[in-house]
């Protein structure tokens, strides 16, 4: 009889078996959505997965390089509109539109990131706030430096994937292929496609953050000067991370266009951006599973908000569900910093411990985003303020 916690060595057979259980759980989720839930919910789950991909992108910049972006709704929107326009107006196949969507997101991310990230501080959040607010205005604009965006994007009316006649080339159908199992609906096939794309992106991102670049990012987040001394170019890495994150989120947006088939400018406003951040923080910053939880929340929380008859306020519709988001966010920040994933890991560590231990998952709210030459810990504990000039003292 062994006592808890159980100690399991990494890469041992038992560990591998447990990992297999994780893979089976993902497979189980997939089969559950395709096989069991009703057709309409399958599409909602597909949207949830696209939101998860968007938050996965945000995680690269917020979780791993320690900068807050309030503008990821715009990258999500760029991806969605790119895919939508290419499919509806130019008859491109869906999968080919995704690289274009991602590339556009990458370029815009780099352009925005260069001025914001060369300077230390909260400037990225400032610029991206502007981006989130400006994006719907640009989409609706019929005179953006002479460009008529409204005619391209459908303006405030939004845009719909045209499902024309099957025989014409221009109509768009994402029907299940011939080799699909019997009884698969279009929704099942849409979910399958998006699920596979999301899996690939989650795997790639998980590899990215464990690669040389990812370790550089984390090093820079935790101690910028130390990282710079060790050969991580802060400006380059930050801009690259931000652009990559925009890339991933834009691909999520492209998938979103497929799943929701209708998009409008106000789907991609400030609310959406804050939902992404809230989803990430609630799910678990700087974890790979956190964005998955955040994506599910992003789709289903507004739904629950409307379905449940809440005390005092009744049903919460549309922007009103922000109350729930905000409350959960505040509670999480205070009581479970690091989010649900971190909380679950702490719970698990009471029963099972993996050795060698990984470093404690970086909780965004425990990480000094600004490398301090006079470390926060060195200061007297009675004084818990951070004077603005302290962050940069001595590094002019």
């Amino acid at each position: 009889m062994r006592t808890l916690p159980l100690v399991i060595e990494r890469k041992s057979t038992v560990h591998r078996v447990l990992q297999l259980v994780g893979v089976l759980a993902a497979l189980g989720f997939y089969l559950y959505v395709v096989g069991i839930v009703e057709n309409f919910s399958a599409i909602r789950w597909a949207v949830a997965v696209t939101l998860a991909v968007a938050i996965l992108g945000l995680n690269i910049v917020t979780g791993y390089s320690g900068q807050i972006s309030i503008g990821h709704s715009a990258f999500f929107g760029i991806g969605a509109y790119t895919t939508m326009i290419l499919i509806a107006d130019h008859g491109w196949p869906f999968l080919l539109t995704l690289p274009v969507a991602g590339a556009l997101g990458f370029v815009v991310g780099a352009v925005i990131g260069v001025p914001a990230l060369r300077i230390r501080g909260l400037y990225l959040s400032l610029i991206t706030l502007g981006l989130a607010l400006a994006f719907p205005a640009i989409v609706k604009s019929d005179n953006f430096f002479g460009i008529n965006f409204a005619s391209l994007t459908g303006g405030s009316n939004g845009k719909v994937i045209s499902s024309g006649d099957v025989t014409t080339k221009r109509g768009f159908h994402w029907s299940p292929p011939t080799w699909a199992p019997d009884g698969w609906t279009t929704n099942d096939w849409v979910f399958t496609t998006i699920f596979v794309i999301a899996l690939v992106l989650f795997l790639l991102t998980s590899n990215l953050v464990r690669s040389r670049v990812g370790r550089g990012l984390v090093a820079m987040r935790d101690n910028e000067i130390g990282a710079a001394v060790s050969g991580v170019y802060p400006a380059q890495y930050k801009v690259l991370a931000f652009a990559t994150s925009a890339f991933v989120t834009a691909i999520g947006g492209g998938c979103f266009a497929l799943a929701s088939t209708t998009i409008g400018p106000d789907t991609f406003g400030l609310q959406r951006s804050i939902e992404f951040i809230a989803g990430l923080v609630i799910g678990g910053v700087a974890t790979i599973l956190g964005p998955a939880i955040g994506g599910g929340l992003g789709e289903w929380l507004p739904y629950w908000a409307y379905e449940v008859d809440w005390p005092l306020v009744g049903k919460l519709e549309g922007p009103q569900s922000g109350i729930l988001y905000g409350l959960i966010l505040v509670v999480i920040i205070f009581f479970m910093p690091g989010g649900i994933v971190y909380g679950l890991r702490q719970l698990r560590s009471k029963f099972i411990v993996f050795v060698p231990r990984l470093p404690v998952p970086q909780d965004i709210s425990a990480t000094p985003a600004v490398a301090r030459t006079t470390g926060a810990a060195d200061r007297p504990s009675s004084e818990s303020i951070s004077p603005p000039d302290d962050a940069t003292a001595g590094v002019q």
Partner: protein
Amino acid sequence: MTAVLAVPGIEDNFFTLTLLLQNLTNGLANGAVYALMALTVVMIYKTTGHLNFAQGEMAMFGTFIVYVLTIEQGLNVWLAILLVMVGSMVVGAAFERVLIQPLESRSVLAPVILTLGLFFILNGGAATIWGTQPHTPIPAPFPGRLDDKVDIITNRLPHFFITYKALGVWATVAVLVILLNVMLKRTKLGLAYRAVAANAESSLIVGIPVKRMLMLGWALAAGIGSIAGAIIAQYRNVLDFNFMAAVLLFGFAAACVGGFDSIKGAVVGGLLVGLVETFTPALFTFVGNELSLVMVLLVILIVLYFRPQGLFGSKRVERV
């Protein structure tokens, strides 16, 4: 009127004297509103180094309470604004004490995320209590009927006039800035506030209640914000649960232009942002009217590129 210039991309009648003057006063009036929001940003940033993304929503909530007090309870509008201002200051200080201070020992990102959470709670809260539809705006603090204006040039068309509400906005900004300056430069409280802004650690050593000064910063910001909310509601003739989000961005832009820790900068930056917002669509034919947010984004980008500390800010930024 014949075209003065025939430059492609330039609006010809932009240079008509009265139109030019009208655009100037409009820009300066908008800019004064942004200056108020920029002041709230500065009051918090000076001591804590934070940006409060819920500032606009706090002002929005306050304006709704002014709405309840005046329209539903029949109070005088200035009395209502005064009450809400005092209430906002208490709430602002309480937010700082209860929600922000416990996070100070963590990172600069934690308070930012918390203010985003506050944004959601206040925004969704207002949408729940007062609905998502636009409301009848609050009673006007300043005379706002069509003929409430000072005519200046009437012997040619279009006329040039200044509305009372524009004068009211300027007067409000002037009074607030004077009061703030008197408070900061002539009182012990202000001295303590400035000491904390300059060096919190040393302030603590000489016995200044640093934490109270941080609360003071939030209280001042919330108070100024509530006035700004009421004035903007009249000036833009709008009251709904979203009306302050964009205004806050303009305030941030103004603070960015002027420098995040300078009161003078907030005012000058606000006026400049207001002028850019009004003049660019009026001057260039290829800039649509609805692009003011984009112009402001460009202003922030340009400032960050060439003078990241802003016009009057102290040089604290460093390149990486």
